[in-house]
């Protein structure tokens, strides 16, 4: 059987078994086992790609090149991480008897399904299948957003689905317009929509149709990535969904949407040169970083704070690509890798803290968590430092590379605004995290005491992930570096 097909089949089977039923113990082992196998298969696929082969399936509809190999590995990694943490997360809720049968079925079914959709996005060469895969992720995450079935989660789900579907309609229109720009030169049948075919035919595409198609495609996939001004659904969805699902959305969906944006950007670059789509990406990226600033300064919820952080990070990646220098592209992809390592740690520690203090609202988590729940608070501070790009950790280097690319590419003002926003975001972040972590311990008479901290399975995963994030800042394994360089070659050089 084709390796690629097996990689995609694994999460699907896990979802099917998980979703059906059976005792909790069995479901947990199936989920973690399935996702572990999936991650292993992703590594194997990437290994084969690095070994020179080009894994493909269904007549090149699914094809793995440098960029997709990198996104595949990162999504597989996040899938495994979210799965294992999810088990711990659910166990903790089970103890407090908050989990209904529906929740359990949805949880064990939808998370592997979501992983499947993400992997499908990262390997699809055919723009049609790409669109269908992104649609699947949206539908899979709707019920994850309504997991806790509160009033606000319904509202968040509605906004998520309406904005998501609208975005996808634009993405579809973009794909169709790109197809129309080929005016029949793309050939017949399924293969006509293959990205590789578009790249061969790119110079003959009709420029105006391509320009319009790129606009709609970037708005569409930008909505899924959370680029401003289409980002409004993200803070609401992140607050309502359970932390493991949020990690999947924050990293998997972000990487997947960025993958689509890069594919479209490459077609546009080949057809009408990088200025148009590069400029659009740069503008939307800057807008995203700037939009995140006021909401980080004044924020009432920990998970929404992390939502604005991922809006900021997708903005940074878009700026990196939009700056139109090789260092910028390399910085963006490196930033994506570090973000995939660091963001889950932040979300998991925030989730654990919220669970222990039974609320993720900054007002309700009385300050002084450091004294009552030291490990979770320490992890939150550590992850806050990582994702704000403080020096000893990797993101500092990737942001430096992007900034340097900005100045070489004579985008001085854009880089200046970007730098100012980064500084203010750091200050806002540190203030919000400092506000709840530091301070005198809550007086024992207050009845809302946080749960005692136990070193359970969930906490173990978070600590392991944190260790991994810290180590990755200094030492990235050889093959991963090769993947990043291959992806840069795809995005920057001609394929």
């Amino acid at each position, binding site marked *: 059987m084709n390796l690629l097909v097996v990689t995609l089949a694994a999460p699907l089977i896990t979802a099917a078994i998980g979703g059906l039923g059976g005792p909790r113990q069995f479901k947990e082992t199936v989920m973690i086992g399935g996702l572990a196998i999936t991650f292993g298969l992703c590594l194997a696929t990437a290994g084969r790609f690095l070994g020179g082969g080009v894994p493909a399936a269904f007549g090149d509809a699914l094809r793995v090149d440098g960029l997709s190999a990198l996104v595949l590995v990162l999504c597989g990694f996040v899938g495994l991480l979210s799965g294992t943490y999810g088990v711990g997360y659910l166990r903790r809720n089970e103890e407090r008897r908050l989990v209904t049968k529906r929740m359990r079925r949805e949880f064990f079914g939808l998370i592997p399904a979501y992983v499947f959709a993400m992997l499908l996005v990262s390997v699809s060469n*055919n723009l*049609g*299948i790409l*669109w*269908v895969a992104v*649609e*699947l992720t*949206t*539908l899979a995450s*709707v019920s994850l957003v*309504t997991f806790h079935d509160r*009033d*606000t989660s*319904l*509202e*968040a*789900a*509605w*906004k998520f*689905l*309406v904005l998501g*579907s*609208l975005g*996808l*309609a634009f993405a*579809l*229109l973009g794909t*169709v*317009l790109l*197809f*129309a720009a080929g*005016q029949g030169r793309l050939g*017949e*049948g*399924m293969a*006509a*929509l293959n990205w590789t075919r578009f790249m061969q035919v790119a110079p003959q595409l*009709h420029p*105006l*149709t391509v320009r*319009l198609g790129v606009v709609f495609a970037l708005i569409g996939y930008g909505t899924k990535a959370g680029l401003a001004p289409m980002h409004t659904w993200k*803070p*609401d969805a992140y*607050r309502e969904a359970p932390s493991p699902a949020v990690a999947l959305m924050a990293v998997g969906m972000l990487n997947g949407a960025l993958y689509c944006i890069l594919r479209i950007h490459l077609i546009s670059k080949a057809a009408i040169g990088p200025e148009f789509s590069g400029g659009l990406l740069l503008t939307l990226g800057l807008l995203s970083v700037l939009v995140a600033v006021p*909401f980080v300064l*004044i*924020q*009432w919820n920990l998970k*929404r704070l992390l939502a604005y952080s991922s809006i900021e990070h997708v903005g940074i990646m878009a700026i990196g690509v939009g700056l139109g220098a090789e260092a910028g592209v390399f910085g963006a992809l490196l930033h994506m890798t570090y973000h995939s390592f660091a963001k889950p740690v932040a979300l998991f520690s925030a989730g654990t803290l919220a669970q222990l203090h039974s609320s993720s609202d900054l007002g309700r988590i009385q300050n002084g968590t450091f004294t009552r729940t030291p490990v979770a608070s320490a992890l939150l501070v550590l992850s806050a430092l990582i994702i704000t790009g403080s020096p000893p950790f990797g993101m500092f280097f990737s942001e430096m590379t992007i900034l340097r690319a900005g100045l070489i590419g004579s985008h001085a003002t854009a880089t200046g605004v970007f730098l100012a926003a980064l500084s203010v975001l750091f200050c806002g972040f540190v203030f919000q995290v400092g506000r709840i972590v530091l301070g005198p311990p809550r007086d024992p008479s207050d009845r809302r005491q946080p749960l005692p901290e136990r070193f359970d399975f969930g906490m173990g995963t978070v600590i392991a992930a944190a260790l991994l994030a810290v180590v990755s800042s200094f030492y990235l394994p050889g093959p991963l570096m090769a993947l990043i360089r291959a992806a840069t070659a795809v995005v920057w050089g001609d394929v």
Partner: protein
Amino acid sequence: MKADILVLCAAGMLVSAYLMVGQRALFTTIRLYGLQSLLLAVVAATIAISEARPELWVTAGVTVALKTILIPWFLMRVIDRIGIHREIEPFLSVPASLLVCVGLTVVGYRVSTGFPEGAGGVSHHLIGVALSLLLVGLFLMVTRKKAITQILALLTVENAVFLVAVGVTSGMPLIVELGISFDVILAVLILGILVRRIVDRFESMDVSRLSTLKG
């Protein structure tokens, strides 16, 4: 001859969108959507005949089955279950909305002039209509407060996209076409379920009431 039918159907779709903007009763809005989907099917059929593309017949069939019959039936059942038949006062008065729609149509059309003449000199008209339909659909989404109307506006936008897909490129690859239709239907089903849960929880379909998550 073929060009006239295509332009006529496309214009018909745009007119149905305009009527939607002016309409207050939900049932009539759903019926207008059904009409719009029917015209889309006719466009698909005419191109199938003129371009001798047998797979377009499948597209036309699917459009009729799903979008003209299944979705309106499903939405009407949802409204019956809920029992709310009238649309409440939209943000913008009807004359003002229509003026904005005209403006959006002008924008859509201006952009389409640059497009290449497709088979039989039709495509730049079709793109112009499709873009206008898309912008009107989006405008409808912005101004209307009822959840069902927002779904219909979203479906109008989908119809505009399918109009481009069928009219300009004489058909996308069939499998992709089917996959996309299937996803759209799935989205509508989930939206419908969500509407019923929202109505159970909030006793009203007024989406503008859903604004507690701020900042």
